[in-house]
């Protein structure tokens, strides 16, 4: 049967395979909600209303059961973000070593504010809570990769390489 939502979301075959596999990991289907949200967000970039309804159908739940999870967990987002996601740690150990200055540096470099998509659509900067690498503070995650001891100079360096990568792509 052709599923309308699958067409709307245009999920990769790999994502669909991953989703079917992960559901088998639990005796109760509902347990798979977080893993399905991760899979779809990694594929599509964010969690749309369609995705919520599709997951609910897939796991035999009501859409509210999925929606309440999306709104509870900070990592799930309901809007697209920039091409690269820069997460700067805000919490104490990083703040003691200059995390706030690191975050401001990225904001200046990309002419944007935390929580917004930069005007060129390249990045979204987020000031997040503890990333559990306090000994190498301040730390930053760019997409899935952790960067350690990101002081102002290193933040500028990282920004430059992101900009260069963007320029090469254009």
């Amino acid at each position, binding site marked *: 049967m052709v599923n309308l939502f699958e067409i709307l979301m245009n999920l990769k075959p790999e994502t669909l395979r991953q989703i079917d596999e992960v559901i088998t*990991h*639990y*005796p*109760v289907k*509902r*347990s*798979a*909600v*977080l*893993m399905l*949200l*991760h899979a779809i967000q990694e594929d599509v970039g964010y969690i749309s209303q369609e995705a919520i309804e599709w997951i609910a159908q897939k*796991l035999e739940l009501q859409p509210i*059961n999925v929606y*309440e*999870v999306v709104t*509870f*967990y*900070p*990592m*799930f987002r309901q809007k697209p973000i920039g091409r690269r996601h820069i*997460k700067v740690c*805000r*919490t*104490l*150990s990083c*703040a*003691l*070593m*200059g995390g*706030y*200055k690191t975050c401001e540096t990225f904001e200046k470099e990309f002419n944007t504010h935390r929580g917004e998509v930069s005007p060129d659509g390249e990045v979204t900067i987020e000031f*997040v*809570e*503890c*990333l*559990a*690498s*306090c*000994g*190498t*503070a301040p730390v930053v*995650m760019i997409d*899935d*990769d*952790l960067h350690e001891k990101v002081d102002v100079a290193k933040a500028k360096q990282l920004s430059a390489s992101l900009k260069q990568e963007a320029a090469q792509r254009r």
Partner: protein
Amino acid sequence: MAAPQQRRLIFKHIDEPGYTNDLACYQRHGGYEILKKAVRMPPPAIIDEVKKSGLRGRGGAGFPCGVKWGLVDRKSGKPIYLIVNADESEPGTFKDRYIIHQDPHQMIEGVMISCWANNVKQAYIYIRGEFPHGARILEKAIAEARAANLVGPNLLGTDYSCEIYVHRGAGAYICGEETGLIESLEGKRAYPRIKPPYFPAVLGLYQCPTIVNNVETLCHVKHIVDMGGDEYAKIGTPNNTGTRLLCVSGHVQKPGYYEYEVGKITLGELLNEVCGGPLPGRTFKAVIPGGSSAKILKFGETFTLKNKDGSTRTLTVEELPMDFDTLAAAGTMGGSGGVIVMDDSVNMVEALANINAFYAHESCGQCTPCREGSLWMKKITARMVHDTARADDGVLLKSVADQIAGRTICAFGEACSWPTQSFIAKFGDEFKSYPETKKVAKADGALELV
């Protein structure tokens, strides 16, 4: 006096050149031999060894692991689940990260031994969402172990089968609380459950008996089975056995992770000798010894503690041994082993504002005192820093904190009020004088913490 040597049990191979996180490397270093030994032992014998070892949970509460296992309802006829709490998210803690990324098989071996000991057929590793590489490494490691008959059906040729799956969290600190974690694993908001009746050992995942253990704790199980509970109990100090991973961050010359016998190193040795002391030109002002919710210690204060024979001893902050019991007697806790150091450049109002912002963000919102209280503590400290500060704000903050602790379903209520209570108790003057302090412009463009 020189600081004692590290005793690397769990971190033996961390950062070792040439050591990789694949099965072949792990087995070259004797990996899974202890699991092979374990499956020749009757499960109750392993539980006895863990009880004898005195192992205490490394996640925060320091609850004896053997006792936890002993509480599991084994007569219900329901399956028993084991969940690895890899939701490392207490600010200041970064130990499990290195186990997961660099030595995942050590943890998996510990998990499988623990599953065998407790007749668990299904284990889940709940890993925090911010470790995407960690989750992939674990999945690969489990697949390798499964292919080698070290995980999965008919483990090592026995008729025992046990599967492990990786489950990813999504950025919520409260998932570190074990019943919140269970709710999250059931696909819901991580609202902690009320105890009684929802003790995980009886009514946990899917209302079945469930064991939730920290990553580091499960790694210790492997070493306990290796050396025997009695031998393990000789490491460390009485009632505070084994080694402990200590994570030091903040204002020291050499922050990082270290492994010591529990109670064999003092806070002073750790900070001054191992971590190289304060940054140039600075002096230590305060330290949080066990993750950001542990009560703060002020350099210069002393603690009069009771000895077993009834006499008393007086210890400075530097003289406190890093064990569970002495830190508790000093009014704080060993918690998760995350030591956060602050020097004299830090204004304590601003440091508390930073911590309060964390807890207000992370309160799950289920209990009114915590949801409202953590938010108001954040609002008050943020107002003090960014807007008008009043001399009696400290009193106000304390009154809010005092109305949270003890009035919530889970320990988050305490976790979010302890920082405020201890900061006000120890640095009350700084809060009182903050309105004046603010008027003086910061000469060195000091740190912004909130």
